[in-house]
Structures are given as C-alpha cells and as structure tokens.
C-alpha cells in the first residue's frame, strides 16, 4: 500500500475530487497547508521594490491505495490539477506498511 500525498492549488480541489471519483477513488483526507516551490512563491513589484509572496495557501490530499492503483491516482490528480503555471503542485508517494479500519478493527497490509 502507498500513500499518495498531493499538494495542489486550493481552487483545483473540486476538479481533482471529481476526476478521482470517476476513477472510483473516493476515500481521501484533506489538509489546508501553505507552501512554496523552488521559485520562492510569487514576486510582486511595487514602487520599484520586489516582494516575494511565499507560503501561498495550498491543499494537501492524502490517499492511501493499493500499489496497483498508485499510478492511476497520480495521473488523475496531475491531469486534473494542472494549469500549466508555476505553483501547480507536487505529488509524493510514501510507503504504507499497514492500514486499520477503526470501525471494524480490520487490518490490511
């Protein structure tokens, strides 16, 4: 099992959710985060000065899936979250050793 951790633009969350649903991926956890990529956020000019606006609001989506579906999840998120501009986000894949359903106590590995 893997955890796919995607950090995307907040305004793209609905699109991503919809795209994932179509692929049958429903379960997910969402966290509001702030972040910056290698460009150090966005540069604003004012009165001859430049100001970096970093740590822009982002949304983190976490989805735990069996290994076989990881690539689908990644592709679906990447496609639906893309605008083509800086700040579109990143997706990380992290190993998960075990998963337990609290309601039933069932364990999956």
């Amino acid at each position, binding site marked *: 099992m893997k955890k796919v951790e995607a950090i995307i633009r907040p*305004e*793209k969350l*609905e*699109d991503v959710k919809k795209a994932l649903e179509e692929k049958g991926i429903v379960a997910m956890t969402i966290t509001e985060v702030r972040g910056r990529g290698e460009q150090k956020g*966005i*540069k*604003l000019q004012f009165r001859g000065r430049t*100001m970096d*606006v970093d740590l*822009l*609001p982002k949304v983190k989506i976490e989805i735990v899936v069996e290994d076989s579906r990881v690539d689908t999840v990644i592709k679906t998120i990447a496609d639906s979250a893309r605008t083509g501009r800086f700040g579109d986000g990143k997706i990380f894949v992290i190993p998960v050793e075990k998963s337990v359903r609290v309601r039933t106590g069932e364990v999956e590995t």
Partner: protein
Amino acid sequence: MVSNISPGDTAWLLTATALVMLMTPGLGLFYGGMVRKKNVLSMIALSFIAYAIVSIQWVVYGFSLAFGKDVHGFVGNLCYFLLPNFYNKIWPGTHIPALVYVAFQLVFAAITLAIITSACAERIKLSAFIVFGLLWTTFVYDPLAHWIWGGGWTASLGALDFAGGTVVHISSGFGALALALVIGKRSGFGEYDMEPHNIPMTLLGTALLWFGWFGFNAGSAVAANASAANAFIVTNTAAATAGLSWMFASWIKEGKPGSLGFASGAVAGLVAITPAAGYVGIPGAIAIGAVVGVLCYGMMLFRISRGLDESLDAWAVHGMGGLWGAIATGIFATKAVSDYSGLIYGNVHQFVVQIIAALAAVAYAFIVTLILAKIVDAVIGLRVSEEEEYVGLDISQHGETAYA
C-alpha cells in the same frame, strides 16, 4: 437665529447620522464576509476609504454641488464651498443646525460609493479606486442628489424619494453594473467556486446595516415626529418580509434556505422601502418587501446565469431593489401617512413620474459610471495584475494578512 433649533429633532438627527455612519463599515463587513480570505481586508478597507474620501470631498465641495444654488436643475453651484458660516445656520425647512444636515447627507453620500465596491471586489487596484471614487461621487452622486433633494429637475417634476431609492440605491446599483462590465470578471470566475469565507461576518454586517437603516429612513423625516415613526416601522416591516420572502423563494428553488439568502433579502427589503418609507403604511411595506425578496433573488440568479461577475450583487439588490422601490412608491403611497397617493388610489400621475425619475437615474448612473470607469482604466488601469489577484489584494495592495 439659533433660537429655532429643536433639541429633540436635533438629538434624533445626530443619532440618525451616527447610525448611518455605522452602515458603511457594516457594509464592509457584509461584503468582506462574502469574499475569499485573501481579499477580506481589501474589501473592508474599500468601504472605509470610500467613507473617508467622501467625508472630505463632501465638506469641501460635495455638499455644495448637491445642495448649493440650483444650476439648470442639474447640479448645485459652489456657494457652500467649505461650508461658510454654517455654524449659526439652521437648515431651511427644518429645526436642526445646518451642520447636522450636512453631516446627515454626508453619510448617505459615503455609503453610496461604498456599495459600488461590490463590482470590483477582489480585483481593483487601490490607487485606481481612490481616483475613480472621487470622480464618481462628484459626477454621479452629487448631481443625482441635487436632482431630487437639492431642488433639481426631478424634484420639480414631483418625484418622491424619501430616503434615497434613486440617489443611493439605483445610482450605486447601476453604477456597479457599469463598473463590473468595464473591469471584467475575476480570474477563475465561472471555473471554480468562490465561496464566502466568513458568513458570520456577513451576518454581523447585515445586523449593522439593518440597525443603521433606521437612521437612514427614519432620519430622513429630518425631525422626531410621526413621519419618522412611520418610516421606522415600515422599514422594519419591509426588511423582515423581504428576508423571509427571499428565504422561502430559495427554500423552494434550492431545497434549502441559506442564511445568506435571508440576509440578502433583508437588505433588499431595506433598499426597496427606502424611497417609500415616508409615504406608505404597513400593508404597503409588506407588499413591497414580499415582492422585492423574490425579485432580487431572481435577479441574482439571472446575473449568475449570464456569467456576469458583478460580484456581490449591488446591481441585483440595490439597483433592482431600488428601482422596484422607486416605482412601488408610486404604487402604494397613501394619504394615510403623507400628502401623496399612488396608483392603487388611482393616482397614475405619481406612478408615471416615479418611473421617469427612476429611469433617468438608471440611465445617468449607468452611462456616467461607464465613462468614468473607462477613463480611469485607460489612464491608470483599474485592475491589479494577474499575480496580484492570485495572491489576493490583502497582500498585494495592503501588504497584510487578515488572519494569522
């Protein structure tokens, strides 16, 4: 001369002025709750800054343009520039010091400019707004105020506008429509949701608006008398009715009644009763409120369906609500509460006059705003850059973050 001041009337007008003053930041909160978190300071600041600009403009020359000696029925002259010798003056036709009258009229002019910020929410450049605002209040508000309250041509025609249905609401509502057309949609509008970030803030704003509106309408009697009393209670009646009317309409249409719907409806009711408050009774107020709640709700849906980003619905609520109110005054005015009567008592004349005055205000406000907005856009640019819009106006225009 000062011997003719009525302390009671003066007390009420001082109070009413303070109440109306509170409406402008109240509107800032009303609007501020509806924008995204990254623009809330900008939204509230626009209201404050509108208030401040008009505050100074008004005592310098704005009051004079509106209430100075009539020039061709269109505008006042500059005889009241900087309010010369006003301290000992009583305002003609009233029993209050002229300076109270000036202040009372000031807070009307101020909120009118603030209402228009709906149209440019989340995308206007602060410097451009300051310039636009000063032009707008000078070239749109001041003449319109003169027309009806300063002895201008609609007054001569016999049009009725108790507390500013045309002057305040039609002008700002249709002005907002024009400004929205010039400045264009927010980036992302129609593509993804732009949810209100803080509805309790909007409800607080609604409360302050409702509260202040008692000063707005009942203060417009310019005395603490039966007319003020009537204005007070019909204002409340129309607001309550319209709040419920919008709420039920959206309940039926969407399956759930939003608290924002109630709030918007209440404001629509307050708008619509504004021109009528001194001329209609309780039944008229109920009718005006019931209609306006459904009407403005429909206008909002219509605006959205047309992909028009007049973002916070100044047009749907103030513009169309004000238009309905102006016309409704000509329908429901009754001799039971004033010297005037409307269509339902057979007075077609009043009805027609109301329509003429209202449509004139619609046309004037829309066209002149369009021109002013185009000019400002051409000269300094109305809109922030795409990046500035993306990070939000709080950071890009004010260098601040609302919530830490």
